[in-house]
């Protein structure tokens, strides 16, 4: 029997586009562009995040570029607003991304609160989300694992809501699975866990809770072997999704024998 873990009848749909992979990967922190590409391919991802930054005037403008390693015809690009601490900067960054990528509308909105926690400033995030949706952007929004905020961001018109599992880069894994469950159960847009995953089981837990996907960067890029970890994450996402769809058994306090009780000898 051949059971496909990636099921063509179970796509992830974001802003009207269908994806076979539920893993979205970041492109920061890799050793070089070659490693970035190899890990991205091993992850089987179809969507990658990128950052918008000033060019280094005076340095070689012909040095290899991220978009040479991960060209737009191979991957859906998700420009982020990382490093923005207010709504105005985030909106400005998205407009630069749209110009850079020839009218591209899909963006990852993140407005951070402070450098120590990198927690989202949810008030500025809401403001920016409203402006970006009004400007015609398709907004995938990074937020805290607060169910009320997740609902408000969905109501504003965000195409995906992306609560954190734990602080960015912390590798602590899903810290509040009941909040995530509450968010997932009440959402009509995809819920993507963004940030905090440390290893494969963390990603599987997020998927088993019913999250629609996971976005990660550090867990792969900062692993000892990023390409192997990318592969592990691909398997974890597929396993977690399959387990969610299969429906896990309820937790019970006492044992339940696996072999029949009838017909035992003696």
């Amino acid at each position, binding site marked *: 029997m051949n059971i496909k873990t990636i099921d063509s009848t179970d796509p992830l749909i974001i802003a009207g586009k269908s994806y076979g992979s539920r893993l979205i990967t970041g492109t920061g922190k890799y050793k070089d562009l070659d490693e*970035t590409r190899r890990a991205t391919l091993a992850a089987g991802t179809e969507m990658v995040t990128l950052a918008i930054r000033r060019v280094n005037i005076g340095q070689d403008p012909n040095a290899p570029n991220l978009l040479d390693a991960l060209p737009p015809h191979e991957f859906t690009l998700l420009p982020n607003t*990382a490093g923005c601490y207010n709504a105005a900067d985030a909106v400005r960054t998205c407009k630069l991304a749209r110009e850079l990528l020839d009218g591209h509308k899909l963006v990852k909105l993140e407005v951070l609160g402070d450098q120590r926690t990198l927690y989202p400033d949810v008030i500025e995030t809401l403001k920016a989300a409203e402006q970006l949706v009004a400007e015609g952007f398709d907004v995938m929004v990074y937020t805290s694992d607060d169910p009320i905020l997740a609902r408000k961001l969905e109501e504003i018109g965000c195409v995906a809501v992306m609560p954190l599992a734990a602080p960015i880069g912390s590798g602590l894994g899903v810290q509040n699975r009941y909040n995530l469950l509450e968010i997932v159960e009440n959402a009509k847009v995809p819920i993507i866990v963004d940030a905090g995953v440390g290893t494969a089981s963390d990603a599987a837990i997020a998927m088993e809770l019913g999250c629609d996907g996971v976005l990660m960067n550090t867990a792969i890029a900062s692993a000892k072997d990023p390409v192997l970890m990318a592969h592990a994450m691909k398997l974890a996402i597929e396993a977690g999704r399959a387990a969610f769809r299969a429906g896990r058994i309820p937790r019970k306090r006492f044992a339940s024998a696996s072999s029949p009780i009838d017909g035992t000898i003696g």
Partner: protein
Amino acid sequence: MQITLNGQPRDCGHGATVTQLLLDSGYAGRRVAVEINHEIVPRSRHDDHQLRDGDRVEIVHAIGGG
């Protein structure tokens, strides 16, 4: 005249266009976006848009990020 390019002061000839600035800085034909005084200057207008004294110009590109 002087402009600010990516946060640094830079001398620039009178009437220079965005295209000229991109040529001078080595970014002509590269995948970049240009913003002047917080307003995007679309690629289609790079040839015509003339820089003015005191302009704050940003040239950005895509790099790795999460």
